[in-house]
């Protein structure tokens, strides 16, 4: 499955939110983790 390979395996990380009450789940995928990190950093900086 070439198309599925272009995304890669799913990874999820579950944490408690700052209020100590609710959960948050981060989903990342093998093939995009690095590029997403960069584009999100740029987006976050623009939001300051």
């Amino acid at each position: 499955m070439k198309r599925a390979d272009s995304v890669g395996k799913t990874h999820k990380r579950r944490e408690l939110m700052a209020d100590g009450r609710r959960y948050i789940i981060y989903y990342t995928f093998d093939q995009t983790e690095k590029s997403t990190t960069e584009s999100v950093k740029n987006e976050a900086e623009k939001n300051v």
Partner: protein
Amino acid sequence: MSELRWNPLLGEWLATATARQDRTFLPPKDFCPLCPTAPGGFPTEVPEPVYDIVVFENKFPSLSPNPPEPAIESTELYPVEKSFGECEVVVYTPNHNSTLAAEPVEQIYKLVQVWTDRFRELSKLDFVRYVFIFENKGEAIGVTLHHPHGQIYAYPFVPPRIEKELEQSRLYLEKHNRCLLCDIVAEERRDGRRIVAENDSFAAYIPFFARYPYELHIAAKRHLPDLTQFSTAEQIDLASILKQVLVAFDKLFDVSFPYMMVLHQKPSGGDYNYYHFHIEFYPPMRSATKLKFLAGSETGAGMFINDTLAEEKAFELRRLVEPVIWKND
């Protein structure tokens, strides 16, 4: 205050959720609670920037795993229950100005993976009877946050509209020994006039019985009761057809097209394998400048009046459908 109140006239529950009156309403981009928290910026709901898609419990839930005591006592006529359930927010992308239509098809494929995971996980909760995945998009629908996101409600009962579809599907199976939606998909494909897009696994069409001018359904060609039973090829095909439909919607009036998108799947537990997975879109626009309002007949009688023909609206959308290109193609 949050509780379930029984409506004896209709035989169905409604939820009160008074805290939702105070929820964030159309904040400026710099104060979007769904953006990743920026260094030195105000703390958002998403403290870390490293993710493709993020899911968290809604700050203003109408259903909760730890619901408060009801604000009012039950009577025989008016039963009241604690509002058990779960309300999650699904942030489609860290990019504030995007939409699902604007995201690459690979991102929609990731969303299908996340939907599947959430459906599987929430269905396991002992107080959950139905997992409902949906998106409200656009101010015309009443969204309060523009950042691209959907929601998931895990109800402690099967909601009335799904109950009605289940009953119709069960009666049809008893009478014809076939799945109702399998026959609907076959009929739409045989006729062809209402088909908008199609691939190996799915058909997108404006149904014969559309209530909104651009109401569109995406149904699996194979009999699949829920997302957890999809093959990888079917997940890929679902992402592809969603991308095609969403792009066609945006091209229709050259606007970011508002819609409600809802996933209909089988309830949690029980023997509901006769039910057939599909997605329904209810866009409120009936032309480039006019909205379809739910007025007296629709709201007061439950009888929809559609001012258009499904065959004509399908033709308008079909000519806007483009091929989907995956990066690896």
